[in-house]
């Protein structure tokens, strides 16, 4: 049904539900993500909700370089998210490994484990950069409103 698909896609584009996951980070990027959702920067007024389970989420906000212990858990969480899903790598450690690249216990960056849609650099990534990045991701979806 074309009309219902259009309405559902409009809802997904305009107010995505996010899941936040920390793969071994120092917690600075996590605090900035939560600061983006609380009343100072207030993404929640746009309908962006922070969910507790991957089965309800559209966007996975991921921080931290992936340590070897958490790699299998991250894959499991990614597979539990329903299609269509997007992954946003928050912070320098999540993009390329940051200062920990080359260490014996990290695989550098999230894109060695799961496919990533948007990269937001910064140490830590400020909430303004986070909002900018997520907005650009959602605008790029408008050109192809029919999702797979």
């Amino acid at each position: 049904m074309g009309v219902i698909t259009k309405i559902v896609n409009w809802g997904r584009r305009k107010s995505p539900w996010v899941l936040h996951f920390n793969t071994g980070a120092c917690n600075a990027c996590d605090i900035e993500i939560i600061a983006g959702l609380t009343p100072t920067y207030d993404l929640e007024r746009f309908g962006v909700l922070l969910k507790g389970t991957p089965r309800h989420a559209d966007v996975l906000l991921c921080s931290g370089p992936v340590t070897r212990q958490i790699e299998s858990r991250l894959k499991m969480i990614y597979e539990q998210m329903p299609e269509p899903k997007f992954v946003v790598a928050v912070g320098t450690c999540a993009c390329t490994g940051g200062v920990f690249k080359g260490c014996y216990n990290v695989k550098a960056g999230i894109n060695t484990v799961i496919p990533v849609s948007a990269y937001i650099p910064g140490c830590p990534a400020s909430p303004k950069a986070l909002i900018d990045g997520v907005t650009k991701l959602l605008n790029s979806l408008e050109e192809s409103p029919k999702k797979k």
Partner: protein
Amino acid sequence: MSPEEAIKNDLERKFDFLNGNITIKRARRIFVDVPFERFHDVLDYMIKKMRCAMLSGITGLDEVENFAAIYHMSPEGKIMVNLKVKISREKPHIKSIMQYFPIAEMYERELEDLLGIHVDGLPEGRRYPLPDGWPKGEHPLRKDWKGAGLEMKLEGTDA
């Protein structure tokens, strides 16, 4: 006489092999060099008679000729007494102190995994903090461990 000097005199009176091995670096910090064979006697005396009820941590060192372990303890939480014991480099092993402090299991597993010092008396358990499929015999915090070829060594494992 300050409390640090009181502790120092108490230990020197009881164990005469500690003469000259106790230094007071600054206020509230005492460093004691204990020989490997008499370590558990000194530990027993400090816990039972001097009532050291707090273990802050166990630090492992790799000085190039030998390993060392420093036990950070404190009577009543005001003065930190650091007991340093040297461990030989071939077949390194120490006895566990879990019968006094059950939390010491965590620190001793770190010594086992990262430096390779075998601890007698640890219960069976998984590796901590290295990942589960890490190959045996690779101890990353030793000074002569090189990370080259790590991907190949981890090829068939779960890590």
